[in-house]
């Protein structure tokens, strides 16, 4: 390995050799194992210029390059994880050379070994639940049609009223009332959706070895801008029960109006390799 190469690390696993031949890395390079049968890093040699700090930062800031690199990184991890307990490493973990990777393995051997044992025979599923704001708020359309009657109480005193006439609210007051009712309905609707997301997460957690909630995804990335993501969960389940988990999760919102559920997986255990017990 010359001065112009660096070592990109994908994952830490056990005894990886036989499964690696099919994977190509982020630079199209063949992927190999560094370490021993008990604990090994899955890595590839990449061009230090193309994957140096400045270059990498620039490339990862380009949406197309980021996508290509992220997918390549993920693909290697997926191939390894399909056959071995696997700790995925975060994108852009790059070392100067293989010796630095060996030092890492030596230094954190016990911790990595524990985590691999814990992950062995288990896999991750993702479950996302969206709530339809219109259904949650009881139908915005009615309010948009100008039916201000739904304002709770309708007490003009609450907003200062219009004592001069003593008659119904003025246009401005009516607007404020309508606006407040909309906001209240929205808040209530969100509460309703979020509560259901909470319940689903709890129920799925009981079927899983471990469960984590992630932040809702940016709607600009998911393309679903019409729904509220009320659950973005990850669940570690025994591999033998994966199908069952996915089926149970998929049925979680059947019969519930206004909810949509999406199961993804099996995934490498990304969400359960985040510094467990540290």
């Amino acid at each position, binding site marked *: 390995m010359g001065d112009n190469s660096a070592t990109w690390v994908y994952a830490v696993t056990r005894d990886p050799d036989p499964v690696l031949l099919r994977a190509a890395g982020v630079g199209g390079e063949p992927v190999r194992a560094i370490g021993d049968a008990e604990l090994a890093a899955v890595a590839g040699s990449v061009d230090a210029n193309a994957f140096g700090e400045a270059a990498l930062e620039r490339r990862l800031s380009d949406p197309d390059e980021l996508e290509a690199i992220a997918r390549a990184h993920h693909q290697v991890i997926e191939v390894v994880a399909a056959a071995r307990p696997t700790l995925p490493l975060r994108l852009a973990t*790059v070392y100067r050379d293989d010796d630095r990777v060996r030092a890492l393995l030596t230094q954190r051997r016990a911790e990595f070994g524990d985590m691999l044992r814990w992950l062995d025979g288990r896999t991750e599923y993702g479950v996302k639940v969206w709530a339809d704001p219109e259904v949650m708020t009881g139908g915005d359309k009615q309010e948009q049609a100008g039916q201000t009657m739904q304002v709770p109480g309708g007490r003009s005193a609450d907003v200062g009223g219009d004592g001069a006439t003593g008659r119904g609210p003025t246009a401005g007051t009516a607007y404020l009332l309508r606006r407040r009712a909309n906001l209240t309905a929205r808040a209530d609707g969100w509460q309703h959706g979020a509560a259901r997301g909470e319940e689903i997460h709890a129920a799925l957690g009981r079927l899983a070895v471990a469960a984590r909630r992630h932040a809702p*995804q940016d709607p600009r*990335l998911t393309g679903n801008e019409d729904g509220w993501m009320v659950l973005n969960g990850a669940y570690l389940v025994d591999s033998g029960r994966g199908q069952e988990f996915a089926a149970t999760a998929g049925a979680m919102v059947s019969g*519930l109006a206004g909810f949509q559920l*999406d199961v993804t997986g099996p995934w490498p255990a990304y969400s359960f390799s985040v510094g467990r017990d540290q």
Partner: protein
Amino acid sequence: MTQPWSSAPRAPGRPEPANLADILERVLDKGIVVAGDIRVNLLDIELLTIRLRLLIASVDRAREMGIDWWEHDPTLSSGKGGLADENRRLRERIGELETVADGGGDTRARATPANREVADPAGRQIRTRRSRPGQDNDG
């Protein structure tokens, strides 16, 4: 109540698990963090990428939603300089007003540095965040 959405799992059509948002969420934000020899702050990258993607994919859609910050973001609107222009106009206007109020004097010199700071918010912000120590391991 009608059901605008099916409550069944989403219709197929998305290969699983190939959704880019799902992959980015995991490779950028999950997984073991170790101190490699190269440091790249992925939080910044994700932010920037979302911005760029938004810009490329759906400028019109974003405008409809009232999202138009990129037009004021010097890192993304090089050449247009909308914010810089606006700052310059405001500086001139402030200068004029202060000249009138104070009956003269070199108040313009005072107004200038503060406005110059405003002219470069995004770049500064990104640089600041990059220098933050730690590994964003917030599981």
